[in-house]
């Protein structure tokens, strides 16, 4: 009896070690839903076990840099800006999109968000305006409404250190008559500096923003769509605005690490997460908004996602490479002009 137990344990161990693994670097949110929608079905379909390394963008990027010469990670999930940083650090390899059967079914803006096919967008989110309809009685229609007197002292904007911050500044430069690709963003910095006294604080995370709304400190702010569900749960009377100048669009992307050891599995994984089934499941569970155009969701789910023709049409995307090139300069300028 003992012999059989030992032998079966031995074979179990051998089996566990011999199952092919794919190392994926991603965030630690919604892990149970990711397991249900991705890990388990992927294992069933391909016999490949996904092993996840968790953390935020900057921690995982730093780890990739340290592993550069002998990478452990095969596939990496990043916010588009951080993926651009990874490209500049020569950490990624171009994706052969002909190997992805679901590539043709995704939005154009998700196909090659960084250029050179270094990454593919697998989810999208918008940055729109949210305001309290009980405190601000007239309808908000424009980003310029942040500069109106009736909202002064009750607004928040994104800090330059957030993912949305630098792109919001580029957008402000454009809507106030300048060029969004002005390396100094002169107009934007001037306009935001004008608004300094009127701003309660510049938010650094969406959870901080939700708190600011809950505490009654802030009545109006730019809000990323992925946190809109949590805003609705606060029970406050809120409205989501698609401003006339458009909402900012952001993609989270997936990319293959240069020198990845499980290349074939990596391609299978990327194709898998772009598939109709996975994109639908993730959308219905409110994990990620879909980029696959075939996905249709009911209205009560749609209102919490970045979804729908009007919504998607209004998205504005700016070049992330431009942000990477000028970020240090903007942070220093921000610290001097605005953070004092």
């Amino acid at each position, binding site marked *: 009896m003992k012999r059989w137990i030992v032998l079966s344990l031995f074979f179990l161990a051998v089996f566990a070690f011999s199952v092919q693994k794919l190392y994926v670097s991603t965030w630690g949110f919604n892990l149970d839903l990711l397991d249900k929608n991705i890990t388990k079905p992927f294992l069933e379909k391909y016999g490949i076990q996904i092993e996840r390394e968790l953390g935020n963008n900057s921690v995982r990027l730093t780890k990739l840099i340290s592993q550069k010469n002998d990478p452990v990670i095969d596939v990496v999930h990043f916010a588009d800006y951080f993926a651009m940083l990874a490209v500049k650090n020569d950490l990624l390899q171009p994706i052969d999109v002909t190997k992805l059967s679901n590539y043709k079914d995704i939005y154009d803006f998700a196909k090659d968000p960084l250029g050179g096919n270094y990454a593919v967008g697998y989810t999208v989110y918008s940055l729109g305006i949210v305001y309290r309809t009980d405190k601000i009685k007239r309808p908000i229609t424009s980003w310029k409404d942040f500069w109106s007197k009736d909202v002064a002292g009750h607004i928040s904007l994104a800090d330059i250190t957030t993912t949305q911050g630098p792109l919001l500044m580029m957008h402000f430069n454009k809507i106030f008559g300048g060029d969004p690709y002005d390396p100094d963003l002169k107009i934007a910095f001037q306009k935001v500096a004008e608004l300094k006294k009127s701003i309660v604080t*510049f938010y*650094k995370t969406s959870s901080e923003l939700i708190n600011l709304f809950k505490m009654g400190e802030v009545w109006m702010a730019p809000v990323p769509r992925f946190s809109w569900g949590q805003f609705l749960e606060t029970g406050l009377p809120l409205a989501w605005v698609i401003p006339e100048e458009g909402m900012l669009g952001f993609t989270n992307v997936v990319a293959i690490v240069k020198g990845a050891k499980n290349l074939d599995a990596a391609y299978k994984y990327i194709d898998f997460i772009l598939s109709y089934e996975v994109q639908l499941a993730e959308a219905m569970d409110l994990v990620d908004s879909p980029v696959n155009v075939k996905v249709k969701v009911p209205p009560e789910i749609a209102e919490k996602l970045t979804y729908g023709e009007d919504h998607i049409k209004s998205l504005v995307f700016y070049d992330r490479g431009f942000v990477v090139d000028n970020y240090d300069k903007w942070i220093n300028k921000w610290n001097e002009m605005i953070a004092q």
Partner: protein
Amino acid sequence: MPCLAFLIAFFMVPLFVTFFESVYQTGKGWVVYRYLDFFRQKLSRTVYVRSVLMSLSVTIVALLIGYPAAMAVISVRSDSLKSLLMTLLVFPIMTNPVARTFSWLAVLGREGLINNLLLSLRIIDSPVRLLYTRGAVFVGLLQLFLPLMVISLVSALENLPKDVPLAARSLGANSFKLFTKIYLPLTSEGIVTGSTLVFTGCITAYVTPAVLGGSRVLMLSTLLYQKASVTLDWTMATVIAVIMFLSTLAVNILSRAFSTLGVRK
């Protein structure tokens, strides 16, 4: 020997590695000039001075409040009451500083305790901005680190021989002389320890300035976060960390020097 080995392995080595990382960057070689870079920029100098002044003022106020508090604790005759007071002192330190900082949001917020009280007493007619100011950061830091000062002083006062103050009184010392010639010099070690702990805590605190000061009260710790997590300038982040350490060391040495000055007199 084992203690020394432990100290070297878990204290000296990481300290040395941090210091080394601030002066040598893989791929670039020696980068000692980054220290000059830091002090050359007006912004870094402003942030550094702001952080040091904030930490010093919290330390001084903590000392001014902490000393009488510690003397009050010592003077309690009942042992059970004294243990209760000590427990109440230690308890906040065991609570997560994040939770303690966030609780200030409920007190200082626009719809918080203070504003509601002032509004109901008609002292003000609309809520006052208390959050996202240097004052809020000051109060948050003081509340966080005051227990450390009080505990250090209680420990120093407990070690004072009980008959020394009595002897001084019998020789004609008044309260002022008793305090300046006996209590202060003999508890100088406690003052130095308490001050170092409070100053270190203040200058390295991240959550309190970030949550209560927001983006407008940029401090050394929030600047370090920017360098490490946003621009990925790890060398500058370690430079800031070393500057924090050296500043704390300087405060420790200076406060020790002041206290021995008192003793010599």
